[in-house]
């Protein structure tokens, strides 16, 4: 054991739709000697409410989240957008309630999964659970909000059994945008179609991203097309030494 503790912020989409991602994260971290806990009664970081302008309601969720993770040494988040919400928006949202300092403390201890592996644990080599060619999509909040484009690529580049191929337009939005996907579904779908075309053109077997929203959008487009490309979260690929 490294003496490190990590609390998993599983996220609403992760909890409800991609539980295997959370499981992979737990297994990967444990194998690296990190003690993992999962605070109970998690729901949502509040980003969907925040993005649609319901800031009072988002602040209530922020408050709840700050309390839930009050004792955590490190908070690990599978989605770049949720990690961004905690790190960048919580302090502002909770200023009025006088909780800015607690929010800053949580922000400082919160990491997106790939950032934690590379930046904190300094671990970069894994065996791929899915052999073959992989390609990586930069989620907008991870890329532009958390300024992170390298850690996932480092991990994928060193993945034993996998070959990383570049995705043209990797930094272009997938078209999810939360409620945007259903408010302007035609536009969202056309953006997605271009992304899917780029993905298929790489010849990859697997599309990797670090955000549940992106994976729902891109995965949904790929399976609708009956594409042979699978959309997976980074954690699922790293969970390879079974």
């Amino acid at each position, binding site marked *: 054991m490294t003496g490190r503790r990590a609390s998993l912020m599983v996220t609403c989409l992760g909890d409800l739709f991609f539980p295997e991602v959370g499981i992979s994260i737990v297994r990967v971290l444990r194998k690296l000697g990190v003690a993992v806990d999962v605070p109970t009664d998690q729901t949502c970081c509040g980003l969907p409410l925040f993005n*649609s302008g319901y800031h009072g309601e988002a602040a209530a969720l922020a408050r709840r989240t700050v309390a839930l993770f009050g004792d955590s040494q490190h908070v690990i988040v599978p989605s770049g957008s949720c990690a961004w919400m905690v790190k960048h928006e919580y302090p502002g949202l909770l200023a009025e309630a006088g909780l800015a300092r607690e929010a800053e403390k949580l922000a400082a201890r919160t990491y997106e999964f790939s950032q934690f592996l590379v930046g904190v644990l300094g671990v970069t080599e894994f065996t791929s659970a899915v052999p073959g060619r992989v390609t990586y999509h930069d989620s907008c909040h991870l890329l532009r909000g958390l300024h992170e484009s390298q850690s996932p690529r480092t991990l994928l580049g060193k993945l034993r059994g996998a070959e990383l191929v570049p995705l043209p337009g990797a930094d*272009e939005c997938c078209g999810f945008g939360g409620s945007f996907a259903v408010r302007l579904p035609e536009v969202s779908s056309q953006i*997605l179609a271009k992304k899917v075309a780029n993905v298929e053109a790489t010849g990859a077997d697997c599309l990797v991203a670090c955000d549940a929203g992106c994976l729902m959008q891109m995965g949904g487009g790929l399976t609708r097309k009956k594409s042979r490309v699978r959309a997976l979260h980074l954690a699922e690929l790293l969970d390879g030494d079974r």
Partner: protein
Amino acid sequence: MSGGELATPFRQRAGGALKDAFLQEALTIATTKFIGLRQEAFEGFPEGEALRDQARAIKEATLQQLDRHLETLIGNVERLGGHVHYAATPAEARAIVVDIARRTGARMAVKSKSMATEEIHLNEALEAAGITPVETDLGEYIIQLAHERPSHIIAPAIHKTKGQVAELFSRELKRPAEADPEALTRIARGELREKFLQADLGITGANFAVADTGTIVLVTNEGNGRMVTSLPRVHVTVMGVEKVVPSLTDLMVFLAILAKSATGQKLSVYTSLIQGPRRAGELEGPEEFHLVLLDGGRIAQIGGPLREALSCLRCGACLNVCPVYRQIGGHAYGYTYPGPIGILLTAMLEGAPAVKDLAHASTLCGACADACPVRIDIPRMLIDLRREVDEKRIAPWTERVAFKLLARLLQHPRLYRFAARAGRVLQRPFASDGRISRLPLFFGEWTRTRDLPPVAPRTFQERWASDKDLRT
């Protein structure tokens, strides 16, 4: 058009744009090209990042002393023999310009490209007063002949193919026109040359106004800006108050990044620094110069939530990288200014109700903020607009109720867990093969084109709670 009852006018216009094959191809080619040009320009320009920060700081500092800088500008323009006018509203601005035109006996006015004059719908007012406005920027000339509005801030006719332009020229100019850009440009040059030489009045906007020196700065590539401000007897500039910069030294910072952001050029072909009407000894130049300072909603934002948007240089970089603009083009937005900054400017000029749908025409991806030469945080202001739309009850009540319900559910873990269990039951008729490909009602907006993963048989937290081997 699918989703009928739910489709707003904006969504319908967007849908129409998606089906326009010409537009789609034009948008892909043009935006991709602009993105590449801009990237190349900044790659070879390491000082660029520091200059962008400096440009942003200058804009902010200018706003902090805007009254003083405007006083200085006004004093200098008047000292140089120019006249300054104050337009609180678009209607006032139109009236001022029409009045100048009438008083000086102008019958025809040549115009250099000016989004400010588009914004106030000046051309219609001039025509109504019996004065013929002639757009001279090639893109603006094309859309004027077509009776359309600009679809991009710097390339107004980007949505037209050369075939469409040739057809337009043949029809409107009653002369044969080949579908070749060189040939079409030559036609425009010939037609407009006469207008420049005959016009009584030249109307421009201003990219900047230097307070210290009373200088109006015009940035163009074609030369029409120079023509319009040198040949006619009278020159009128319509300018938003936020365009003022304190000094020539400040100006250089902006010139170093403006063209690079817009088209990838180090400088546009012509940058003209105009200090008032013509002076003694000059062969050319206007006898009269008028500066019309335009508020139109800008001043209210100096202390308002859209203040940052006042830094906009009108370069169009945000349009080119926006995933939404790139699919639907400028006309679908429905207002003078399209794209990410366009949504903010529309809110500024027309009020929050005008953007109740447009505020959601964004995935909040942040590419616009990245590309903006003065680092305007557009996504943040879009979220603030959404908030204003909700708080002012401009959003439909069904939507507000749905979000409040969602908030309630997420606040209470038992409700959340119940919703998960309910979801699992309700989805049964629609789930097969590990995915959901069809959902009723509103949820069909997703499943029409995409699959959805089903709610997991056991959520992560359910598994964590019950699987001992997961916990150890």
